[in-house]
């Protein structure tokens, strides 16, 4: 079997598993108490003195031209302190999606701002819209389809010629939104020429320049911007920018000389603040009788909004890449809000379009899908992970064991004799997750206090906690002894939270800083303990000469610093073996029940097995997987952007009809992190360094749950989410399975 390549370990590598003090254990969040008691203040919670409330006027039409716009009445409306026109608020402007921002108003109370919005006169010439992302023929006829050249590898025709069987199917995954619980927006406060933007963001260090530049272009005399974000209610890839409404809030605050809070309404949040591109595909797979995939041919269509786009075919077929492939993409321009990066961009869609087709192929051969997947492990993509095949093989076994595959799995359509059928489905995924650049400044004070500063952010994932643990591990202190300062752009620059790069970045920089600070402390302490610095260790709140009882407790040790703290600035620029790494794989299995008389799918159980390298906080790591699986259940079963052809509206842009699963819809989730006891793979995984985890576990649920439903009812429900109408339609249509 393949093993992980031996590489020279970084001098900052984490201690080996047996020597770890706190990392790898379950630690509750250091800010958990503030969140649960409401002491944590999110951007939308802030109410500085003299605050003005911002509201937006947006377009109700998907495609229209403005023929008249008059804001005089809004300006005169009671309590109004400022009116801001966005770029499209002009006669002649073409509006190309519903929710397009036109005017912002700031007033003394939210109700006054809403009254002023209602007083704005706008007239539109309504133009013909196209909002149907699935109807490729209609889009062609409407001139909304752009056919791209096919990408090929190998010889597709020869591949199909050597196939024993050719499987064809149609699959689809519609647009969904990020639906952040805290909507996009900010509270903007000026002090002279300096702006502080309390922005709900996953990009603290990267957004100040956007404010400064945007305001300069509006002729605002601005010296600097500081972005502050202590807590964030979800971003998922949609909150990297100041956004036009951020600039509007800052502008209105500047003009009024008072703070302005402007958070998007739920409807606008769903309509314009980002979504995940849709993908539909006709797929053809060539297989040998033993299950080997030898050829793949797919025609894709979908959208990212008015610019066309859709799911990148770069990740299709997903992970399993036969020698001979052809993919063609048709990009459809729709009058819908634009896409933004959505947790693991392209991967959930690629997985849902590929591994469903693979499971159909396995069913056509009468093969157990695990056997089918294993048969094709030699063609898995190794770009992220040289030992991917070994990892998947191991994970498939662990996941099968946890779900009780041998007892619970049955051939397709044999899910029980009554109305309610049970089924199992599998999928697997891959992600990079290497560290982003991160700098931090760490101080050890003479009084024993330890604090770190970095312009990173905790987007709800537990970043503050893992920073504290990384430092605590290095200095021999508990996590709650470390003061973690993030969420201010005046701190050292640290990357935006995208691509599952944060945990590597911030643990890398803080580990390095803590190691360097420890060196300085040891140099001070060593003479007192009659030892050399390299004989010392920091464990359990003590500095000790290794193997002796000569020691100082932490405060005695830091007391030797005199009046000046130790201050260390460190940057982590890229992965270093044993410290941070990239490339993870995971396997997930869904167990569902389907009521064939109502079409309703219920989750029974869900197993997620994940390799993730060195784990800092096992609890927040497991929580990431739980959250991802729940988000995956949402897009697999309930969640979709419904565009209404009659009005061009995102007709379910509210929290009743934009259906997200409730607690009772989740079922039991079992998370298994690859650990040293998982054998050869586990040991190596555990030693290679920290790898990001935020995205990978959200990739598989669409395919896994779709496969489980097909296994239960005997037919494929081609398009996600697997709503009761789609399930009943598939049952009615029947199938060849």
């Amino acid at each position, binding site marked *: 079997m393949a093993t992980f390549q031996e590489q020279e370990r970084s001098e900052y590598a984490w201690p080996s598993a047996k020597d770890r003090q706190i990392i790898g254990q379950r630690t509750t969040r250091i800010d958990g108490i503030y969140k649960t008691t409401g002491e944590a203040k999110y951007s939308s919670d802030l109410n500085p003195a003299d605050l003005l409330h911002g509201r937006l006027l947006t377009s109700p039409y998907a495609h229209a031209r403005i023929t008249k716009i008059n804001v005089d009445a809004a300006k005169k409306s009671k309590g109004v302190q400022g009116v801001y026109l966005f770029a499209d608020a002009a006669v002649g402007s073409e509006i190309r999606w519903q929710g397009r921002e036109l005017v912002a108003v700031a007033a003394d109370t939210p*109700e006054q701002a*809403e*009254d002023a919005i*209602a007083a704005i006169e706008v007239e539109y010439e309504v133009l013909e819209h196209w909002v149907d992302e699935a109807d490729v023929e209609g889009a062609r006829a409407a001139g909304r389809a752009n056919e791209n050249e096919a990408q090929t590898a190998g010889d597709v025709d020869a591949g199909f010629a050597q196939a024993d069987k050719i499987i064809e199917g149609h699959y689809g995954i519609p647009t969904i939104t990020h639906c952040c619980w805290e909507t996009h927006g900010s509270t903007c406060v000026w002090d002279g020429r300096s702006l502080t933007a309390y922005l709900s963001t996953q990009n603290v260090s990267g957004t100040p320049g956007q404010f400064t530049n945007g305001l300069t272009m509006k002729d605002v005399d601005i010296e600097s911007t500081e972005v502050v974000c202590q807590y964030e209610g979800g971003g998922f890839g949609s909150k990297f920018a100041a956004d036009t409404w951020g600039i509007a809030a800052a502008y209105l605050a500047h003009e009024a000389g008072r703070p302005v809070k402007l958070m998007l309404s739920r409807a606008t949040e769903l309509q314009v603040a980002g979504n995940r591109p849709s993908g539909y595909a006709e797929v053809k797979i060539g297989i040998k009788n033993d299950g080997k995939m030898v050829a793949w041919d797919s025609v894709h269509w979908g959208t990212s909004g008015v610019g066309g786009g859709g799911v990148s075919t770069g990740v299709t077929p997903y992970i399993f890449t036969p020698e001979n492939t052809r993919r063609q993409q048709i990009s459809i321009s729709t009058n819908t809000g634009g896409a933004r990066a959505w947790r693991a961009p392209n991967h959930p869609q690629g997985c849902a379009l590929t591994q469903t087709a693979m499971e159909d192929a396995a069913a056509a051969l009468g093969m157990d899908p695990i056997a089918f997947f294993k048969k094709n492990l030699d063609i898995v993509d190794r770009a992220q992970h040289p030992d991917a095949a070994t990892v998947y093989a191991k994970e498939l076994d662990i996941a099968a064991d946890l779900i009780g595959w041998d007892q619970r799995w049955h051939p397709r359509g044999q899910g*029980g*004799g*009554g*109305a*309610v059928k049970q089924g199992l489905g599998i999928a697997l995924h891959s992600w990079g997750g290497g560290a982003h650049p991160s700098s931090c400044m760490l101080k050890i004070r003479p009084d024993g206090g330890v604090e770190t500063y970095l312009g990173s952010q905790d987007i709800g994932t537990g970043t503050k906690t893992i920073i504290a643990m990384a430092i605590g591990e290095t200095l021999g202190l508990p996590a709650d002894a470390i003061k973690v300062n993030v969420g201010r752009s005046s701190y050292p620059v640290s990357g935006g939270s995208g691509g599952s790069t944060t945990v590597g970045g911030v643990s890398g920089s803080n580990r390095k800083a803590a190691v360097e600070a420890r060196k300085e402390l040891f140099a001070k302490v060593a003479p007192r303990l009659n030892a050399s610095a390299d004989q010392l260790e920091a464990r359990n709140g003590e500095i000790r000469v290794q193997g002796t009882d000569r020691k100082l407790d932490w405060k005695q040790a830091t007391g030797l610093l005199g009046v000046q703290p130790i201050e260390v600035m460190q940057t982590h620029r890229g992965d270093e073996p044993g410290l941070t790494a990239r490339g993870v794989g995971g396997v997930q299995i869904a167990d569902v*029940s389907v*009521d064939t*008389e*109502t*079409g*309703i799918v*219920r989750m029974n159980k869900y197993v997620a097995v994940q390799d993730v390298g060195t784990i800092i906080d096992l609890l927040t790591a497991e929580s990431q997987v739980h959250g991802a699986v729940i988000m995956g259940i949402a897009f697999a079963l*309930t969640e979709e952007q*419904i565009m*209404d*052809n*009659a*009005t061009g*509206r995102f*007709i*379910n842009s*509210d*929290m*009743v*009809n934009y*259906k997200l*699963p*409730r*607690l*009772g*819809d989740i079922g039991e989730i079992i998370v298994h992190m690859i650990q040293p006891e998982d054998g050869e793979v586990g040991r190596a995984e555990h030693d290679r360094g920290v790898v990001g985890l935020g995205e990978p576990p959200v990739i598989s649920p669409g395919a896994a749950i779709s496969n489980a439903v097909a296994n239960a009812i005997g037919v494929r429900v081609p398009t996600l989410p697997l*709503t*009761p*109408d789609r399930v*009943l*339609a598939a049952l009615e249509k029947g199938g060849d399975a």
Partner: protein
Amino acid sequence: MKSFAYARPTNESETVNLLGSKWGHTALLAGGTDLMSLMQNRVSTPEVLVDINHVESLKTLQPTDEGLVIGALTSLDDLLDGEVLEQFPAVNQAVDGIQSIQIRSRGTIGGELCQRPRCWYFRNGYGLLGRDGERSLPLEGDNRYHAILGNQGPALFVSPSRLAPALIALNAQVRIIGPDMEDVLPLEYFFVTPRNETQTENVLLPNQLLTHVLIPPADNYVNATYEVVQLQGLDWPLAAASASLKIENGIVQEAKIVLGHVAPTPWVSSDAAQSLIGQPVTEETAQSAGDISVATATPLSRNGYKVQMARTAVKRAILRAAGLLEGGQESHV
């Protein structure tokens, strides 16, 4: 939300006097779970909000010889307390199905019956019938959640009440008051299908209110509700049915079957009920009643699936009433 005047009457006559005779001028505030979102979206823009929460006579919850008297302000959670619904499992199951904790604790029975339709065209400002000029948006557009029965006129929304089918199956009555009037009528006749935008989904005039619900004794009737609902939390059923049966010596003597969420009003299926008379309740007779209940369905372009759901809801409500469907779908294997 548009600014409004606020009034807080303490008795029924004061309340009636505060209500205007013009549509949309006043709104009644009970639990507010529906009204607040309608006002926030400016679908409802009353000048005066009449808060009835201090009208004590609306808080009754009293078993009497004529049946159970329920004041309109009784919260859904209060209905589940104690054993007041012991004879009425159909109502109990409907209330229990409302899994939103907020709606159950704040929402009232009066509000549950008077909540406005969930139709997304209505909620997006196109009026109760979802008209855009001459166009019927539910007819032309996305009607996946719209009516499959009683949809020959311009009204295509579905009645959103979850208690109404159960209460109608149990022959519940409602008391209505207005200026110089007081009336008690069967709940079945409370709901109407509007023919134009000047009408609403019930018989109330702008200056009238529903004050009480009376459920007559049901000791000789078994009854149950079955809802087909996608989410186990805040969500409305896609189809539902309530059944009330009088069974003697294993044979159905009397039956009432009411469907919910399939038509602009709760939908009484006399044919389905009639088909059970003289029959034992079995999987077959229940299935047949289900088939009959949707025999006249006229689904729109994309809600045909609701026919199958309604059929199943009727079948399972009958089986559940007869004690042949323990615990709902999960055990119905």
